[in-house]
């Protein structure tokens, strides 16, 4: 068993390292690997190559790593907390809320485009808060079914709002499409400078939730017997997932696939649902997947940079299906 897990981690780490290398070296302009290394070490000459590596590709790669990791972890947390294999950040309304917030800025206040990440974050968290409030009040509050249903309802609300905005500002809809499809943008460190604290808090919180989620896996009653409060853990996991997903949307738009599939792939590959394994390795796997997908999205039809969302599907689904066959 343990050997299998070690192998999975090794594969994930290797994929991540190779992905990062590719992300820094490949793109519309060919930058030789030597120059990439020089630039990273601060030894490169001034010029477009150095700018491309350090100001365009490096921030984008870091974005991809953090967003991929955050979404992988968010999915793992939610699947553990809700006990439902279909759980993902979309389920708690964060994706729809973030979409609304970002589209609001893009379409209604395009001059304030610097506020795009803030809009996505604020509305993503608002949507999640609404979902939790609706799911919590009344009898049987805090149960998984309530949470999922509330998520579907609030998500529909914000999705309607987004559609309304797109109808009201039809000439600007084009600028919104890239965000909705989910994609990273080469725009330097600006985004991450604003948003990194949310990633840090979310990831730190996730580490603390690992053991409680293992207890929750055995059922609410057993968890209670062991001194955990199931509803509190569910709320905490949902909150951490919401934070990570909203922060991710603020940087990379609506990437729906990673949070759902990566934890499953990790569980199937590693043969275990232990959160001490699944949560950190989902971070590695999500990061590797997004870095690889983004590199592909940028190099498939240069100089066009396609949205990375569809590439997640192209890379991830065959992997998922193959593992599914083996598991069954």
């Amino acid at each position, binding site marked *: 068993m343990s050997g299998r897990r070690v192998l999975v981690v090794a594969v994930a780490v290797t994929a991540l390292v190779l992905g990062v290398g590719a992300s820094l070296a490949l793109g519309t302009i060919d930058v030789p690997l030597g120059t990439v290394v020089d630039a990273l070490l601060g030894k490169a000459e001034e010029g477009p190559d150095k700018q491309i590596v350090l100001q365009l590709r490096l921030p984008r790669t870091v974005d991809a790593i953090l967003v991929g990791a955050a979404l992988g972890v968010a999915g793992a947390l939610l699947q553990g907390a809700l006990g439902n294999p279909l759980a993902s950040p979309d389920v708690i309304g964060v994706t729809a809320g973030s979409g609304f917030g970002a589209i609001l800025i893009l379409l209604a206040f395009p001059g304030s485009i610097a506020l795009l990440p803030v809009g996505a974050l604020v509305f993503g968290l608002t949507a999640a808060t609404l979902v939790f409030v609706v799911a919590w009040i009344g*009898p049987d509050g805090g149960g998984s079914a309530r949470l999922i249903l509330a998520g579907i309802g609030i998500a529909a609300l914000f999705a309607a709002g987004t559609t309304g905005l797109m109808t009201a500002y039809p000439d600007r809809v084009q600028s919104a499409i890239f965000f909705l499809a989910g994609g990273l943008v080469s725009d330097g460190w600006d985004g991450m400078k604003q948003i990194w604290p949310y990633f840090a808090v979310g990831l730190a919180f996730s580490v603390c939730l690992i053991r409680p989620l293992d207890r929750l896996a055995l059922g609410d009653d057993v968890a209670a017997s062991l001194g955990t409060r199931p509803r509190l853990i569910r709320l905490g996991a949902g909150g951490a997932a919401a934070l990570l997903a909203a922060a991710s949307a603020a940087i990379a738009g609506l990437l729906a696939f990673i949070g759902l599939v990566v934890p499953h792939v990790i569980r199937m590959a590693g043969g275990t649902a232990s959160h001490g394994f699944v949560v950190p390795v989902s971070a590695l796997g999500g990061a590797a997947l997004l870095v690889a997908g983004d590199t592909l999205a940028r190099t498939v039809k240069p100089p066009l940079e396609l949205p990375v969302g569809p590439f997640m599907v192209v890379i991830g689904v065959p992997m998922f299906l193959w593992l599914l066959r083996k598991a069954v």
Partner: protein
Amino acid sequence: MLEATDVRVTIGGTPILHGADITVEQGELVAVVGPNGAGKSTLARAAAGIQKLTGGDVRWDGQDVRKLRGRALARLRAFVPQRPRVPAGVTVRDAVRIGRSAHIGPLQRPTAADRAATERAIERAGVERFADRMLTTLSGGELQRVQIAVGLAQEAPVLMADEPTSHLDLGATVSVARLLRRLADDGLGVFLVVHDLALAAAVADRVVVMSEGRTVASGPAESVLDSARLAEVWDVDASVEAGSQGQTALRVSWLGDQDMTRGSS
């Protein structure tokens, strides 16, 4: 160890328990019996501190359950629910290790003592044979023994089991019954909610009968489970008999008065 007095519980506006009393000491197996809706599970959960009390008093080793924090309570009692979740990707050993968490601090790693306690729990519950298998590959009886092992890993003086045998076949039921009796003999306090009256009579040191949210009787099986009680609480014509070699039997008049049900014949 456990002293519950005049326990009252209201759930969603409906009063379920109207004053129930029960005590469990270490080394004794107390069986709680009663018809559906009598409030057996609710009493178990209230006593375990999992269900909020509306009134009454529950004390563990003299301490009020409402004042005991999760971990401290987890070291006093282990609760095994009726149909626990069976998550995928978890082995028996993984699950029993999780049962140990009351003894492991949030940032600590499991120590050698914890690992030894996990193995002890696995042994006591008799699940060593399949300790490395996934929970999802186990049969009902094996699963129930694993759940008990998880509870044993808590190393609490009292084990509370809510109808652990209701969904098991005869062989599995016997296996669990023997395990529980052996645990009680080894000094564990066992609070067992059970449907099967013959089983209760066989394994329990004391039987508590519940009806309509109250505890109506408490004592040894022979005196508590007499025909009058069965008729009064379950509205059946039945009796519990103890045979030789620890066998018990429940004799029930299943079809009632033959002449009346058959009509004219």
